[in-house]
């Protein structure tokens, strides 16, 4: 709009003709219309005529308003112009800067390009030197073998000699370089494994929002195993490449025989598997420094399963793969047989599983111990409930059952025996067989209690607290339950109970028997231990009057 010119044209009388020239055709039309000197926006604007007209036509109010409006317009136009000017100048300046920067960058790039060219030249020069030197050796080698220098020209682009090489031993430089490379790969594998373990521990320890399930152990195990195996395969591929690319070396007998066996199979694969077993097993030997946090039980379980899987299948898979890619010599140095590695893996798995049982057993046992040590067994009142700690024990053991079940198969349970003749001697037994005991049993002579408990022992098998744990869920759970109940027994024997204390033990024992028997491989184990707890509690009681069995059942049902 011609407002720009109008703003600056408030005091200029020669506004007409330059604008006409400037604005060209648009104003030509306006010029064809009647030239109106009072049109403030027109090309023929005449301020005198305008002012006369306005003075005569408009009332004062209108005049003042028009003046104010004009003033505003002028200021607005002014600032617009300034902004436009400023922006235009800014654009020019930044454009200049950019161009300057580009100049500098291009100068740098030029310098680097020059360096690159120099390096490439140097590399191709030394590469030419190396292949020249080796060509010399190959030629000499071919000569020694009796093949003429002419045969050497059958080399392909990689410089591979088509002729055979005599078994005059490995080039020590090459051998050392290869071994160092393999060592580096081994260390990288070890670091990778430790990194994976760290991730697993973090995943296990991460706080979860309530209601959301934590990472499943099978998933974590699958990820860990797959990552490690993947990395191992990748490393083998790299080594394969190393031997393939510098195939000038690869045809040396060292690479065909000893390298495959010593460096790759033994120095890398076997060494890594051994290290993995040792490291996993190390978690079962307690923390490195006293006071450092011990490994979480889930980790122990996971590593046990990993080692077991290694023993079952992974080791033979890895060894087969290695042997395929790096075929061993028949007359080469001795190899570690696969079964030996599998034995190491199994030993590690066993140790980890035993330790898991110990740790979890100790955790449950600690709850039971505290509950027995802190209670006033003499002054306690008649029991109305099962003690809360027993419910927690059942909950914890159920949770452990779930955890172990994620990674290990169920196992075999001994069928429930119908032979209940031995129940007759469990005088204070909290078994489900009602009416099998006398309500108020008091021994008439010291021999009787002793004789009874000895006869009971004759019929029950001696419970071995720490028979080695097998790789199935019921065996693990049985081990944990045995430790817990044995602890309960030992703690009860250290206290003195009143009549109601004994009855509370009776109620608690029945509750445990109701809910724990299904976790054990043989319910007689649970029964036997609980019987011993009851018997010891009776011995430690000042006034042993057991509760009616029906009442015990009622209390346990109520929960």
């Amino acid at each position, binding site marked *: 709009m011609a407002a720009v010119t109008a703003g600056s044209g408030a005091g200029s009388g020669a506004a007409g003709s330059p604008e006409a020239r400037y604005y060209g055709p648009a104003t030509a039309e306006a010029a064809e219309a009647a030239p109106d000197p009072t049109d403030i926006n027109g090309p023929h604007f005449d301020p005198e005529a305008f002012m006369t007209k306005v003075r005569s036509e408009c009332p004062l109010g209108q005049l003042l308003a028009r003046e104010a409006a004009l003033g505003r317009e002028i200021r607005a136009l002014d600032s617009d112009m300034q902004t436009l000017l400023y922006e235009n100048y800014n654009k020019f300046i930044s454009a200049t800067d950019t161009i300057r920067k580009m100049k500098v960058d291009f100068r740098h790039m030029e310098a680097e390009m020059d360096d690159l060219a120099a390096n490439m030249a140097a590399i191709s020069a030394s590469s030419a030197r190396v292949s020249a030197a080796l060509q010399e050796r190959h030629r000499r080698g071919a000569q020694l073998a009796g093949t003429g220098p002419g045969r050497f020209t059958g080399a392909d682009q990689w410089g591979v000699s088509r002729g055979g090489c005599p078994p005059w031993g490995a080039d020590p430089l090459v051998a050392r370089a290869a071994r160092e490379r393999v060592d580096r790969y081994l260390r990288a594998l070890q670091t990778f494994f430790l990194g994976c373990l760290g991730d697993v521990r973090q995943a296990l320890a991460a706080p979860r929002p309530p209601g959301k399930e934590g990472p499943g152990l099978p998933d974590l195990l699958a990820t860990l195993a797959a990552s490690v195996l993947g990395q191992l395969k990748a490393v083998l591929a790299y080594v394969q490449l190393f031997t393939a690319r510098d195939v000038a070396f690869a045809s040396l007998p060292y690479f065909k025989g000893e390298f495959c066996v010593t460096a790759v199979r033994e120095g890398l694969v076997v060494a890594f598997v051994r290290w993995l077993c040792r490291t996993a097993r190390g978690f079962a030997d307690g923390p490195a420094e*006293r006071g450092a946090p011990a490994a979480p039980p889930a980790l122990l379980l996971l590593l046990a399963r990993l080692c077991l899987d290694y023993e079952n299948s992974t080791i033979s898979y890895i060894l087969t793969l290695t042997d395929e890619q790096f075929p061993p010599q028949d007359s080469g140095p001795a190899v570690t047989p696969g079964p030996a590695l599998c034995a190491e893996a199994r030993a590690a798995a066993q140790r980890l599983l035993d330790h898991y049982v110990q740790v979890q057993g100790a955790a449950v046992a600690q709850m039971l111990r505290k509950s027995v040590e802190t209670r006033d067994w003499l002054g306690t009142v008649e029991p109305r409930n099962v003690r809360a700690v027993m419910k927690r024990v059942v909950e914890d053991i159920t949770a452990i059952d779930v955890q172990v079940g994620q990674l290990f198969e169920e196992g075999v349970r001994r069928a429930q025996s119908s032979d209940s003749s031995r129940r007759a001697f469990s005088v204070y037994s909290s078994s489900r067989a009602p009416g099998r005991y006398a309500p108020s049993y008091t021994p008439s002579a*010291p*021999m009787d209690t*002793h004789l009874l408990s000895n006869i009971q022992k004759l019929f029950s098998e001696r419970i071995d607290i720490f028979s080695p744990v097998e790789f199935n869920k019921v065996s693990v759970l049985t081990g944990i339950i045995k430790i817990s109940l*044995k602890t309960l027994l030992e703690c009860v024997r250290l206290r*003195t109970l009143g009549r109601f204390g004994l009855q509370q033990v009776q109620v608690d024992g029945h509750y445990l028997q109701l809910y724990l028997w299904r976790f054990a491989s043989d319910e007689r184990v649970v029964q036997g231990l609980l019987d011993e707890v009851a018997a010891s509690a009776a*011995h430690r009681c000042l006034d042993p009057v057991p509760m009616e069995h029906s009442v015990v059942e009622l209390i346990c049902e109520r929960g």
Partner: protein
Amino acid sequence: MEDDAPVIYGLEFQARALTPQTAETDAIRFLVGTQSLRYDNQIHIIDFDDENNIINKNVLLHQVGEIWHISTSPADKGVLATCYNKTSDTKVMTCAAVWRMPKELESGSHESPDDSSSNTQTLELLCHLDNTAHGNMACVMWEPMGDGKKIISLADNNILMWDLQESSAKAVLSSSAALEGKGQLKFTSGRWSPHHNCTQIATANDTAVRGWDTRSMRQIYCIENAHGQLVRDLDFNPNKQYYLASCGDDCKVKFWDTRNVTEPVKTLEEHSHWVWNVRYNHSHDQLILTGSSDSRVILSNMVSISSEPFGHMVDDDELSDQEDQHQEEKIKEPLQDSVIATYEEHEDSVYAVEWSSADPWLFASLSYDGRLVINRVPRALKYHILL
């Protein structure tokens, strides 16, 4: 006769307390205290005739309560101390007292255990150890090789040293120390070191082992977290003055050099449940006896940390550590630590094992069902050590 077979004696009650008759160095004799809440408690004096492999017993009545700990005077064959429970309807208090047995029983008798006319005799109470101010007594220790006048008792978190005066008719508290700290601290057991002129004791509380100087009643050293769980028992190596062994509920036995308490010198993990007792053999400190609630007694050969790691040297009876090193030229391979034997004659938790003070190759073990088993070190090893 090649007779390493164990000899078994059964008490009719539960029992936990066992001690050799310390002052008796000719005849093999042990004392066992019973734990019964409904019948009069007894102390059985077990006399072992090792020529005929038979046991003779005498029974003393200990009517004041069930016995948790028993120990005998090193000077007077007839004097012993017991820790027993005094029960009322609302409270149980463990007290300690010093007793004298009838004169004729001091040197044993020849009544066979089948003798039905076993006339039980009574103990003569000499004095009580007044613990109204201190708490439940855990154990009473006599000053080793002392004159039988000084004893130390552990009561809750207190160490109490007593002087027995007027022929042990009076016990006067001569000094005491208390373990400060949060929570209910309680000593589980203690042992008086035979070294340093009998001025040091070691105590176990919770998972810590502490050493104390009895002259100042101050703590000298502390082995924190000696075991992962409760420490049950301690014993000092009779031949190496800075070495002690501890055992606990983490199923382990650990050996310590008290000059460096950060790491155990050796750890044994042969038991599968709580280890209640550990005992060094009085003469040959490579023989370690341990009893556990897994019902087993294990005899271990801890040669590498004993005073004779390279076997018996013909000329030297008192070898110190430094002398060992000087003799390296004439030395054969150091022997390996190993488990010598596992004794499985018990069917219930073993709460006490003790070496005899008369025969260094013989020991007794006691399980909760009242079974006392007397066993020997296997002959082959005995000759190997001696020759």
